[in-house]
Structure formats: structure tokens, C-alpha cells
């Protein structure tokens, strides 16, 4: 791997570049799913290749190949340079990069149990036991359960002299019960929708999730939703569970703080951001209890955005994004940091594979735990409590959002008084965060993994981390998804 990365770097460096880096990457994955008592998707895959990024003629060029012969690497190197040269046809100014140090490091994400040491039949055994529990509940028409394991070893080499060898292991697991009845489909998922929980851990995550223990409750809720009242439409205090709040952070804070979006790089696809440069340090993003960080360090937790170095060789860092409610930081790269006069990147460049260019991506963008107890968060005369995301949508500048959840509860004085089906809420990002009235403390804080964040052209899918504990918001519009 090191030889490959250095060979690729040498192939471009000796042809004359301002800067270059090469990432040699080896990815191993396993997916195991079950559906209604049978194995669903059982697969194993490996992928190895190299991506070469050059800065030459004032422009970027990037070429990637899985032909790892000397001629394959030379061919990719030549192509990267040709691409950079072609970019001069539409160049406004030469790319400049914020300075960075040279690093030589080896880092392996910690885990207790190597997920690839667990045989597939044991994976299936766990999932089929959950499946049986789900289908034991009358009315469950579809039971789905899954596990996903991934290991990535990447060797990064750059013309700064950096040589960084990182290995990250990720585990994901979860299940869902679906109930079809009389022209209505209801679903409950555990511990989160869209595949469950994902973290930078080994197989120990599967054991920590207590899948089997939670299956009966989740299945019963899926069926009970058919008999529940429809979530009303109007304004209400809203309490979100930490998984839904994690996605709320992702969409209404994580994406808007990407500096490449702010500067227009994503205008044609993912969009731009309402956080224009004049807002930095001035905008009242949220209420005073709202504190958000972007933190890729292991100290923050085993998130999908945890690493030692980003994909342009910048060390993992913690950056304040919202401090006491005020907007104070973006996620940056070496190029975008230089573009706004910052002295250093805060290390958010990530690529979803060897064949793709690093982009600014969320690392772990988390709402810090509050000072309230869970009882204090729920202790209001009346509120709607929503759990587990069902749908999510936000405009391309990240002002207006609408989320739907799998289940809602009408709360009075901290007690659940009735179940509500099809709950949804909507608003404007800054108005929502300024309405934050209570955040539960660290005992209720969970670092959630979002495994499917899309960005870039060609599109890249990235895993991101979001820590949150349950929180309450005042006077939020609810029920909007079924309005009109």
C-alpha cells in the first residue's frame, strides 16, 4: 500500500506539480440482511485502488484507477495532469492552499471484536432471532434486519512529505417492522431508521444495541400505529428523541456550515447555504443553550466522522460551530480556508473511496449535551414528542425543512397521554434552533451515525456522526406534511 501511494506520487511529482497527493485504499465490506425469516442480502466485497490528485497550472486534476500495475499508475498520473492542464480553459485564478505540516503516522481505530472474525451464520442467527420476535406480533407484515461491516485502510502520501496510514473499522446494525393494514403502511425501526445505528466500532456494537430485547416493543408499536390518532396540525412545543435530533443537526447545521457550499462549489447540485460569510461571528443561530461542535477526534466518540487525519493530510480537530447560540465556525479544507483568509484547514476533506476526490464533508457535527435532566426536558404542560425519522427534506440553501417521524406521542406534564401516527414538523433552520428551550444532559447523549449522506458530482456517499440528547423546542409547526 505504501509503495503504491509513493509510486503514484512519484509519477506525478517528477512531471512537475505545485502540489500532489495520492491515496491508496483497500476496502473490505460485508452485508447481511434478513427478511421475513430468510436470508436476504448476504455479500462480501473488497475494492482496492488509487486516487491521484494534482495541483498544476493553477488547476486541480484528479484521476483514479484500480489498475495497480506500473503502467496503470503511470497512465492515471498522466491523465491527472492532462485534466489539470485542460482546466486552464476556464480558470479564474490559481488555486492556493492554506499551509499544512508534514506528518508521518499510523493510526487504527479501536474495536473490541473484529467484525470479520464473526462468521456469517452467526450474523444470520442474530438477525433471524430478531426477525422471529418481530413476526411473533400479529399484524407485522414485513420484518427486516441487517448488519453491515466495513474496514478501510488508506495510505495517504503528499508532496509535503506526509505519509499517513489509517485503518478505520465500522459496524452498523438494526431492524424494522412494517405493518400493512386496510390501506395504511406503518413502520417502526430500531435503534434508528435506514439501517439502525452505525459507529466506528467492531462487532461489540451489535451486542450493545440489544436488538432482540427491543424487538417486541418495536413490533407492537408498528401495529398499534394503525389505531393511533393522526398527528394534529398546528403549533406546539416539540420534543425530539436524540436520533431524530441527530438528523436535524445534519440537515440544518451540518450542511450549511460546509464552506465549499457557502462559496458556491455545490451550487449546481447539493446547493448553497444561508450562512454567507458576513454571518460568521454575528448570526444568532440558536438559543443560548445551543452549542455545536464539529469534532473528528476520537475523544469525541467512535463516530462515522472520527479519524486521525482527513483525506488531504490535515489532523483531526475540534471546531466550535455554534457557541452559546452564536454562529462561529465553518467546516473547511485547505483551499477554502485560504479563500477566506484563515490560516489553516480544520480538516474536513473526505472522499468516499479511492476513485473519488475529497470534498468538505461533515465529520462528527454534534449538539453538546445540556444541563437539564430528561424529566425537565419533558416537563411542560403540553408537547408533542417524536421519535425516529421517516422522511427528511430541506431546501437547497438550508432554510426551510420538513421532517416526518415514525411515531409521535402527545405529552402532558411529562406523561404520554396518546400515541400519534404520521407525525411531522417543519420550520426555518435558525428559527427552530432559536426555539430550543431544553437539552438533556450527557447521560442521554448518543453519537448517531448517518451512513448515507450524498454530496458532490459524481455523487459521493459518506458516513457522518451526530451526537445529541433529547431536546425541547417551543412553538414549532407540526403536522405540516398532511396539510392542505
Amino acid at each position, binding site marked *: 500500500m505504501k509503495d503504491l501511494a509513493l509510486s503514484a506520487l512519484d509519477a506525478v511529482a517528477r512531471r512537475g506539480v505545485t502540489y500532489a497527493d495520492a491515496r491508496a485504499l483497500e476496502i473490505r465490506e460485508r452485508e447481511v440482511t434478513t427478511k421475513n425469516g430468510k436470508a436476504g442480502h448476504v455479500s462480501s466485497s473488497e475494492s482496492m485502488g488509487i486516487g491521484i490528485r494534482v495541483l498544476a497550472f493553477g488547476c486541480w486534476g484528479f484521476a*483514479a*484507477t484500480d*489498475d495497480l500495475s506500473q503502467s496503470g499508475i503511470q497512465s492515471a498520473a498522466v491523465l491527472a495532469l492532462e485534466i489539470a492542464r485542460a482546466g486552464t*480553459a476556464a480558470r*479564474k485564478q490559481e488555486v492556493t492552499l492554506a499551509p499544512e505540516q508534514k506528518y508521518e503516522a499510523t493510526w487504527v481505530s479501536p474495536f473490541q471484536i473484529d467484525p470479520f472474525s464473526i462468521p456469517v451464520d452467526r450474523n444470520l442467527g442474530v438477525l433471524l432471532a430478531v426477525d422471529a420476535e418481530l413476526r411473533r406480533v400479529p399484524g407485522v407484515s414485513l420484518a427486516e434486519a441487517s448488519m453491515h461491516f466495513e474496514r478501510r485502510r488508506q495510505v495517504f502520501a503528499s508532496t509535503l512529505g506526509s505519509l499517513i496510514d489509517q485503518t478505520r473499522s465500522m459496524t452498523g446494525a438494526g431492524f424494522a417492522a412494517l405493518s400493512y393494514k386496510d390501506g395504511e403502511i406503518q413502520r417502526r425501526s430500531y435503534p434508528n431508521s435506514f439501517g439502525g445505528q452505525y459507529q466506528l466500532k467492531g462487532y461489540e456494537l451489535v451486542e450493545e444495541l440489544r436488538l432482540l430485547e427491543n424487538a417486541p416493543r418495536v413490533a407492537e408499536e408498528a401495529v398499534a400505529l394503525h389505531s393511533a390518532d393522526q398527528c394534529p396540525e398546528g403549533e406546539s412545543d416539540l420534543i425530539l428523541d436524540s436520533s431524530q435530533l441527530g438528523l436535524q443537526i445534519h440537515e440544518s447545521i451540518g450542511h450549511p456550515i460546509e464552506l465549499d457550499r457557502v462559496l458556491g462549489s455545490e451550487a449546481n447540485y447539493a446547493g448553497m447555504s444561508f450562512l454567507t460569510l458576513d454571518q460568521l461571528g454575528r448570526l444568532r443561530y440558536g438559543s443560548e443553550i445551543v452549542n455545536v461542535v464539529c469534532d473528528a477526534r476520537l475523544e469525541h466518540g467512535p463516530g462515522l466522522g472520527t479519524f486521525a487525519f482527513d483525506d488531504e493530510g490535515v489532523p483531526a480537530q475540534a471546531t466550535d460551530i455554534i457557541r452559546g447560540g452564536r454562529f462561529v465556525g465553518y467546516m473547511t479544507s485547505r483551499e477554502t480556508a485560504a479563500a477566506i483568509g484563515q490560516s489553516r484547514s480544520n480538516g474536513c476533506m473526505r472522499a468516499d473511496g479511492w476513485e473519488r476526490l475529497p470534498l468538505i464533508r461533515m465529520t462528527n457535527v454534534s449538539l453538546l449535551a445540556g444541563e437539564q435532566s430528561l424529566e425537565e426536558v419533558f416537563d411542560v404542560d403540553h408537547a408533542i414528542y417524536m421519535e425516529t425519522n421517516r*422522511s427528511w427534506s430541506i431546501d437547497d440553501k438550508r432554510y426551510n425543512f420538513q421532517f416526518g417521524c415514525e411515531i409521535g406521542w402527545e405529552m402532558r406534564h411529562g406523561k404520554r397521554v396518546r400515541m400519534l401516527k404520521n407525525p411531522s414538523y417543519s420550520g426555518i433552520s435558525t428559527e427552530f434552533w432559536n426555539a430550543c428551550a431544553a437539552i438533556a444532559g450527557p447521560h442521554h447523549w448518543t453519537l448517531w451515525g448517518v451512513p448515507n449522506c450524498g454530496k458532490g458530482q*459524481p455523487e459521493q456517499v459518506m458516513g457522518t456522526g451526530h451526537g445529541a440528547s433529547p431536546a425541547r423546542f417551543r412553538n414549532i409547526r407540526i403536522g405540516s406534511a398532511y396539510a392542505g
Partner: protein
Amino acid sequence: MRGDVEAIFGQVVDAARALGVSEIEAIVAGSDEALTRFANNAIHQNVAERTTHLSVRPVIDGRTARASTNRLTREAIREVVAEAIAIAKLTEPDEDLPPLARSAEYQGVERWFEATARATPEERARAVAEAIHAVEAAGQTAAGIYSTGESAFALLNSRGVSARHTETMARFSITAMAADSSGWAKASACNLAALNPLELALTAARKAAGSTTPRELPPGRYTVILEPAAVLDLTGQMFPDFSATAIRDGRSFLRDRIGKQIFGENITIHDDVGHPLQSGAPFDGEGVPRKRLTLVERGVVREVAYSRQAAALAGAVPTGHGFPLPNELGEAPTNIVIAGGETSLEQMVVSTDRGILVTRLWYIREVDPYEKIFTGMTRDGTFLIEGGRVTAGVRNFRFNQGLMEMLSNVEALSAPVRASGEETYDMVAPAMKVREFNFTEVTRF
């Protein structure tokens, strides 16, 4: 694509036989693609990728599993076959698992074009520079992509299937931005000669110029004219439900609705891989030839897709829309052709006393899986129509709209085109004039 497909498959079969397995399927897929991306009137990301991968699937006494690699040495091929066999043997037998497919004739489609395959970084850069110049000349800022590439897909199995498909694809999309407005246009084609980047740039610039100082209108029910990309991205969300497996699982809105009138009589939809504006392979993930399906005929749901397994369970005939096994989803139609009408977009505008013209929709997500309600936003060119003409740009709306209601409220359709969006597969779709489209909120721009 690296390697000789026949030679690779020969090694796969040999490796399987050496382990006592005679039933084996292999997919060899490769691509060589490049994309020139621009923003702020300059090329800023400019990439190319070459990939080849091998994926194998044995069938052993009702058991199956898949293993994949992009290493194509003899040793790596032996390893990936051994891995697939090892994990397949750890699964329980499934009496519903079909044996490997047998070979069948499929219609040939010519979708590989030399000019697209051989497009150079310089060619893309020149076209991008010209497009940027057109937008800059309008006092605006351009962002977008121009991609070209070729792909090859081969599916072979030990029962004689040897299905091959090669294709080229070119895509150009552009967003033109003025101070408080934007416009967008996109097109794709197997033959890059069918693309006109400059024309797309001028369209985007015209939309941006025409929507400056956007007015804020209240949410509510409006007559809308959806351009083909908007029709594509919204209606495209429902086609995974035209799947026998999805219906059987109770996750399709078509459960208990086959044969029923759920859309207006002016809605007819086919799945037709052979359509001249379509793309993709004429066979499915098991090598079964894709049949032309009448999904909706005059508003009535007629046919859905069946994989071999779904067909066997239902006593039906496979339609050639199965995904590679093993999978949980079964099948889906992916070559959608929505029949059009004879009303041009301009005629739709002229016939509208008050309405909204929508260029594209964004971040579309399902709100209700059985009523098929979706939410999302308008984006990059949303206009007010008054008295039969476009009079102003408007701030973007959020919609919450049921598809059955929407496709029952279509007042006019244009001729269909190959439409390309960002939220689903490209398809052949017309523009639509729809009454009582449900906008529920307005955003800030």
C-alpha cells in the same frame, strides 16, 4: 474494462469446480468515466475514474451469496469464488431460490458512441468555457458539470447465459445564478452529439434573468406547469412500487390497486428498454431479457415487474426486471416512458390564467407510503403565470403532494423528451399542467 471477460469467467468456473460447485454466475463490469465540474465561472473539480470489478454468485442446494472484488489476478479470482462459496454454505437453504437462469435471446440496443467514449478533458473544458461565457455575458454566475464516459457489463453463468451490454453516456447540467434568482437546465444522452451545452446554458441564464426580484406568494393550491425534469423527479419516486415483491411485502402503494383506475385517463406509462431515448441494458440482474411493460394504461394499473423468484411465487412470467441476487427488493422497472400529449409548454402557459411554472424539484422524500404523498421544494426557476404569460419569479415553495391525486389532475401533457434530473433515473417524460398542486410552505428565496 480490464481483462478478457471469457477468460475471467473461465477462471471463475474452474475455481468453483475445484471446490465442488457447478452452478456459478459472474458479473464483470467496468467503466471509464470523467467529469468536469465548474462553479463561480471556473472549472474547479475535474476528475476521471477507471474501474473494473468481478462479482460472483454460486447456487448450492438452495443457498446463495455474493462476493466481489476488483482484483483480477488468477489468485484473486480463486479467492473471491472461495469466499462466495464459503458464505453461501453458511446460509440456510431457501426453497424459493431459483436455479441460475438459462440463456435467452434479448433485443440488441446500440448505445455505445465513439465520440462520447473518446471525449477528452480538452473537449469538455472547451464546451464548459463556452457555456460559462454565455452565462457571464448575462451578468450571472455559472456552476455545473459536463461528464462523459463508457461502461461495459457482462453477466455469464454456468447454464449458458452470456449477456453483454456496452454503453456511453454524456451529461451536461448548468445552474445560472443572478443576485437573487437562479435558473437550471440539464440533458443527458448516450451520444454526446445530441447534447448542446451552449443551448442549455442560455436556457439556464434566461430562467435566472426572468426570475429576479422574486415575489412571495402564499402557500396553497395552485395550477402548476411542471417541466419534464420536475415530472421525472416527482413521478419517478413511485416506480419502485411497480414490483411484485414490493406488493407482496406490503410496502407498495399498488397493493390492492392492480387493475384499478388510480390516475386520470390521460396517463399511460410503459417500461421500455428499447425506446430510442432510453438507456441501459436489455437484460436484468440475472440475464433475463427485459420485456416491455404497460404499467399504466389510461390511468389503470395494468402490469408490474416480476423477477424470476417473484414470478415463481405468483405463478407469473418473469419480466426481466430483477436485481442481481441475493437481494430483498426483488425487481423494479427502470426504463420509464410516460406517454405525452400534444400541448406545448408555451401553449400550457397561454392557457393558464393563474399558475406556477416549475423548472425542477428538489429533496423529494416520501411522507406517506400508501397514499404516496411526497414532500420537496421547487428550485432554480419558479415563475408566476398570470393571464397566460409568465410575469415574475416567485420564492420557492415546499409541496406535500399525493401522486395519485396529482396524476388524476393532469390537464395537459407535452410531447415526451429524455428528461434528466437529480432524484431518480433519467426517463422519457412530458411536461404536465396539473391543477390544485399542493404548496404548503414558502422558503426565504
